[in-house]
Every structure is written in structure tokens, then in C-alpha cells.
């Protein structure tokens, strides 16, 4: 199937700004789904609220555009009640880790078979450029006229500590890599997290003088390095890209099925 067949083409051109990285994430994700050859009817995409969250309206899957920060909680309900479905949950950085931080760590803890995609533009895009828990120190934002003093989360570390069994990071520059990681994440049994650095030229870029979209994308190549690469070894201050965690552990829905099996036996 062509990648366009996974789109709800009637809503194109989409609402994202010119050069918004979220479109590239959509692009990479659809390639992953296409290459895996998953049936559209087997996928539920759940999103929250934000520019990023609008992604669920553009894909021809079952789509649940939910509440800001709560996508993983909705997804947990969908998945547990119908484990045969594949759950894709793209989220903005604010969505996933500001208001949604608790659902993020709890979904990870349970190791429920959901793929969380953090579309990290380090800013609240939808509401016009306020700082997020991933902005980091010293950034300009509409609510940080004097520059931010808030430390940022390391999404990878947090996901790992919370119990995620697959954790990867890449960027919109590394679109092929993104597709690759997304494929692995989707096929992984358990809670998987893929963080994708995704430029917001309109707010983050403009305010922080990071140039236009192509410049921001190019920058992702400069500031990151593949895990295990010489580049990273030589400059550990760079942001690591790659698969940080990939381990097998009991998956929540499967464990629950065992409870049912036991309880139903108890009954008869």
C-alpha cells in the first residue's frame, strides 16, 4: 500500500506550519507502518491536545483525539480491553511530560504494549510558545521573557527508570533512522518510547534564534550522535541517538489474561 493510502488526504494540506517537524514525524511513522504492513483496522492512534496531537486526525486508523496529557490513559483503556489492537500514541513534549507525565511513567511501569512517540519540539507549540519541561535552561519562551531556569527531563532516562522496555531517540533529520526505530518500537512487546526531536520553527526556532526550518533540522545532525559512535565518544555533551533499552519483560495485558484464566477456572 502506498504511504498516502494511510492518510486522510481530504484534510491536506495539514494545519502544521511550514517546516514543522511534526509533519516529518508523521511521514516517518507512516513509512514504518507501511513497511510493517499492518492493517489499518488493527491500529488505534490515540493522541492528546497540541499541534502534535493533531496527527491523529491525519491518519486513516481508528483515531482518538483525547485530552491534553491523557492520551496514554485513554490508550491503556483501549489496549487492555482489546489487546489485539496496536496502540500508537504520539504526544507533544508538554502533552507527554508536563501535564501527562504521570500517565507516561505509569504506562511505562506497567509495561503495557503501547508505542509512545514523543514529538519533542521543546515548546508548547499549540498555545504559542511557552516553555515546556523539555525546553531546558536558558531558553526564551513567551512565559520565560528572562530565559528559562527550569531543568529539562531526559526522556530516555525517565522512561528507563519508570520501566519502559524499549526506549529510543532520534530526530527529524534522521528520518530513516526514525522509521527504523518506530518499526522496532511497534513490533516490541511491551511499552516502547521513541523520542523524536521535531523542530517548531514558528515558536521555538524564532524565539531562540535557531534559524528557519532547514537550519533547525541541520542542527539536529550537529547536536546529536549515534550511540556507540566515535563522535559521541569524543564529545559526550552531544545528545545520544539510538536504542537505549530493548529488553523483554512480562507485558501487562498478557499478565492480565493469566488472571482471567485463573479466575475463570476457579469459577467452574
Amino acid at each position, binding site marked *: 500500500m502506498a504511504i498516502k493510502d494511510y492518510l486522510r488526504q481530504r484534510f491536506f494540506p495539514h*494545519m*502544521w*506550519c*511550514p517546516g*514543522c517537524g511534526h509533519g516529518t514525524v508523521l511521514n516517518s511513522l507512516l513509512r514504518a507502518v507501511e513497511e510493517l504492513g499492518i492493517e489499518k483496522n488493527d491500529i488505534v492512534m490515540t493522541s492528546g491536545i497540541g*499541534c502534535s496531537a493533531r496527527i491523529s486526525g491525519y491518519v486513516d486508523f481508528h483515531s482518538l483525539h483525547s485530552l491534553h496529557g491523557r492520551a496514554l490513559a485513554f490508550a491503556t483503556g483501549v489496549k487492555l480491553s482489546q489487546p489485539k489492537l496496536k496502540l500508537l500514541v504520539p504526544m507533544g513534549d508538554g502533552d507527554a511530560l508536563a501535564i501527562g507525565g504521570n500517565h507516561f511513567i505509569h504506562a511505562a511501569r506497567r509495561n503495557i504494549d503501547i508505542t509512545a512517540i514523543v514529538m519533542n519540539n521543546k515548546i508548547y507549540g*499549540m498555545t*504559542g510558545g511557552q516553555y515546556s519541561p523539555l525546553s531546558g535552561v536558558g531558553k526564551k519562551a513567551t512565559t520565560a521573557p528572562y530565559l528559562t531556569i527550569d531543568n529539562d527531563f531526559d526522556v530516555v532516562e525517565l522512561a528507563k527508570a519508570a520501566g519502559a522496555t524499549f526506549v529510543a531517540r532520534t530526530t527529524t533529520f534522521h528520518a530513516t533512522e526514525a522509521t527504523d526505530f518506530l518499526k522496532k518500537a511497534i513490533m516490541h512487546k511491551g511499552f516502547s518510547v521513541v523520542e523524536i526531536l521535531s523542530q517548531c520553527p*514558528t515558536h521555538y526556532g524564532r524565539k531562540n534564534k535557531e534559524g528557519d526550518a532547514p537550519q533547525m533540522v541541520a542542527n539536529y545532525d550537529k547536536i546529536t550522535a549515534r550511540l556507540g559512535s566515535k563522535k559521541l565518544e569524543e564529545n559526550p555533551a552531544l545528545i545520544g541517538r539510538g536504542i537505549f533499552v530493548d529488553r523483554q519483560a512480562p507485558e501487562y495485558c498478557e499478565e492480565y489474561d493469566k488472571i482471567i484464566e485463573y479466575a475463570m477456572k476457579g469459577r467452574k
Partner: protein
Amino acid sequence: MRTRIVFSGSGGQGVITAAILLAEAAVMYEGLNATQSQSYGAAARGGATRSDIIISDFEIDFPLVSQPNILVCLTQHAYNTYGAIVRPGGTVITDTRFVDIGKKVDARQIELPIYENVMEQIGKPIVFNVAVLGALLGIEPVLQKESVFKVIADRVPEDFIEMNQKAFEIGYKLGSEKMAEIMGR
């Protein structure tokens, strides 16, 4: 006196800023009342933008404009959408680069090559909106142009004031010349 103006265009054109500058100038430097409001699309980005301004000696209660005296359209989409709402006998201002006037409306339709002139003489699209404002005041002297200059001085970073003033003058010249032309006939 009560002037009702609608600015329309697309997100990146600075339509709203122009509207604010105008209304602010009325309030801050001419002792008038003014309201400025804008409508947002579903998509915060790139969509059609519209801003309504009312300038008046009296209090302004209802702040939206249903039939503007002056309508500015900076995209074809804006013109197609809003062209018909202008008051009969009012004025429609469009930029030749962006708008093809199709069906005529019962109003003075003024097409000006503002964008072209700005790009030629300054080369920065960012001041296009201020040039449009200049054109508007060149056509309809709803305020003194000094008032707008003052607001620009208040709002714009020092280094850019001159460029903005220049842009304003470009527009103003286009507008007033056109009016002279029209009136002359």
C-alpha cells in the same frame, strides 16, 4: 465619527499587527476610542486571518464589524471571503501581487502594488504590513500619520524604526497618489 475597518489576509502577513498599530494610534495619540479584535481559525497556523477595528469619538459597545467602511484584503482567499461585506460606497484595498479582483463589489476598489514597491525599495517582506497601513492612511485619512509613527516608535525596536517609517511612506505615497488620481478624475 465612527470608522469600521476590516483587515484580512493570511497568518504570516502581519495583518493583526497592522490592525493593532492603527487602533493603538487612535487611542494613544488622538484621544479617540478604538477596539481591535481578531478571529482565529481551527488551525492556529497559516489560515485566514481577519481583524476588525472600530475607531470612534464615542464609546464602542459591540466591537465586531459587519459592514466595514474600509476593507483591506491581502490574499485572494481573504478577498473572496470578505469582499462582499464592504459597505456600499466603502473602500476595498488590495495588493496587486496577491489579489485578482474578480467580481466587482459596490465600493471603491483600490488595487496597489504595495508588496512590489516594498520589495523593490526595502527588500524585506516583514514591513509589508506597515506599508499597507501607510496606503490605507494615504487613501482614507482616518488618523494623522504622525500618530502611527509614534506608535511605531513605541513598539518597534530602535534599529527597525526607520525601516518601518520608510515602508509606511511607500504605502502612503501609493495610496495618496492613487486617491489624487481618482479624485482628479
